[in-house]
């Protein structure tokens, strides 16, 4: 199996007032193509910082982070946005849908940035929404949808440019347990059926154990355990 993600002594430090915060302090980690990895830890452990670095939303202070062999630390901001657009699909705890756009428009937006023509992206948005079980709700705005439905829209959007890496930051954090199961089932299907690499940040050890095949536990910016199911 190919290595999909390769972090080497990755550090992310930043200043907060007078003190230096070591959000990530020397993380070395390999993620293989098609893995489902849970990043487990308490808040402030650095798991979200690591996810943001993988997403190309942030830059490391030190170290390298290669995605499919290309080091994100060396990329220009344009290359990083290209990485976000085509290599990764991001799913947030708070869904992060644009409230004034319909579900279909939200899904189509990232294809718009990718330069997909209108007819093609509208068709694909419809297909994707159907595949996550939202066939009849395409023209609803986020506030007309339940939390679970909003997260399904977000998943559809994350898939719109067919990335090979899905990054999920507490995807069920705002959902009840029943809806959480549905969302996790969707992610699991993406991993098992479509072969996507999934990295999920969570503070819930049970969730990690139930769905991920590998759990990386973090504390104070470092990895303290790495276990495969």
């Amino acid at each position, binding site marked *: 199996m190919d290595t999909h993600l390769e972090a080497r002594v990755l550090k992310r430090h930043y200043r907060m007032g007078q003190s230096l915060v070591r959000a990530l302090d020397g993380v070395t980690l390999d993620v293989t193509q098609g893995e489902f990895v849970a990043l487990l830890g308490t808040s402030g452990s650095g798991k979200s910082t690591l996810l*943001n670095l993988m*997403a190309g*939303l*942030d830059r490391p202070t030190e170290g390298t982070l290669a995605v499919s062999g290309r080091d994100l630390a060396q990329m220009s*901001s*344009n290359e990083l*946005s*290209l990485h*976000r*657009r*085509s290599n990764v699909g*991001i799913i*947030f705890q708070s869904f*992060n*849908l*644009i409230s*004034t756009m319909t579900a279909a428009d939200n899904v189509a*937006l*990232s294809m*718009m*940035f*990718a*330069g997909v*023509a*209108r007819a093609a992206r509208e068709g694909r948005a419809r297909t994707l929404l159907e595949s996550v079980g939202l066939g009849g709700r395409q023209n609803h705005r986020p506030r007309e949808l339940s939390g679970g439905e909003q997260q399904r829209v977000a998943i559809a*959007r*994350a898939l719109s*440019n067919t990335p090979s890496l899905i990054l999920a930051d507490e995807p069920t954090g705002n959902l009840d347990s029943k809806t959480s199961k549905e969302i996790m089932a969707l992610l699991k299907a993406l991993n098992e059926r479509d072969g996507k690499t999934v990295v999920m940040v969570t503070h819930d050890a049970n969730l990690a154990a139930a769905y991920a095949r590998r759990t990386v536990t973090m504390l104070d910016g470092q990895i303290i355990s790495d276990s495969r199911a």
Partner: protein
Amino acid sequence: MIVSDTISLALRNLGQAKLRTTLTTLGVAIGIASLAGMVSLGVGLEEQTVGRFMSSGVFDSVTVLPGQTGGAFGLGGRGRGRGANRDRGTAPPETPRKPLDDAAIAEIAAVPDVKEVYPNIAVPIEVQFEQEQAFATLSGVPLSQRDQGAFQTFAAGTFFADDSTRACILTLEFVRRLTTKAAQALIGQDITIGYAAAAVTPANAAAGMAPPRRVTQSFTIVGIVERPGGALPLAGGNLSGVMIPLEQARPIGAEAIVGRQSILGTPPAAANRTYNSLTIKVRRAAAVPDVQERVKALGFTTFSVQDALENAKRVFVILDIVLGLIGSIALAVSSLGIVNTMVMSILERTREIGIMKAIGGSDADVRGIFLVEASAIGFLGGISGVGLGWLVGRVINFGANWYVRSQQAGGPTDLNLFALPLWLIGGAIGFSILVSLIAGSYPARRAARLDPIQALRHD
């Protein structure tokens, strides 16, 4: 990102905040209206003035005055653009005053590109028509003036048939002064003119005095011209009340007492009589400056409409700039309105910008959306501003014409103070977009540089 998508996204964003967009656009519209209105006023005034020059139809004319005697002659139009003319004010003062006599006419007629030279004869006369009397100026018109300048539009009748008829043409303005009869009814009627002539005898010539005597002659009215005197009396565009063929006017001009000189100076002898001014007709208008140069080199003072027009145009450029600057103040204020609106909009949409960047929007995409928003405001503001400016101009124009009519019955009623040529419309809209883009560039850059993680935490 496809350009059309950027535009549709930007327009969608503007539509999200309709009130704010409308108010900002209105601000730009007022700014553009004031700018376009001011420039339009400048252009309108210029067209009014230049139009008067044009209607005098004397672009191919040069007026010649006697040579300079050292004292500055005011009408010469100093400070013309042409370098060769610049040193004119400092012409050698010792040059003797060169008289405008028949020798001078012959000399000037030999200058290249000169079509013809004729003296401007103007004699004060008393006109008698039936029981009515009025004072006027009699002038001689060469036959070459047929269909030229003011002789293009006759209220009644036609131009002189030939040089030998004792015919005259009147101006409509003079006709109204003279009689209440319709212009058409006067054609074919006779008028009697009377003027003072110097009786030259050897005795009084020796004394340096010629006692005046009254001479009367009769002329038949053949035509009445509509247009009143041109803008420039000296340029030969002036129409005096009564015009007769030049050849008829020569003998009258020779004996008439025109001014102080005719009485107190040496009585004019036919051989060396002088004229107050000459008119040169130049073959083509473009040759006017050259002819002026050459005639000046002969020792005469020249003056042409082109001189005055160039001076006037220079004044109008300055006027346009001043008016434009005043008009720009409102636009500057409204451009701050754009900055304010866009900065507010970025604050409101920080999270949305974060989302866009997180799902793959590049800095350029975000910047593009904001720049399109700004230029859309500029475009809409520009169009409505030009419309608004036009409307205000029409209203002021209407008021001005109404005022002119109320002050002076029969005065010009087609006064057009505001001109809105195509270049001004296009320029105003283009400028509006440009100003909006400049105003929007800072907010757009700020939006593009937002850190996506920070922006996503924003609520």
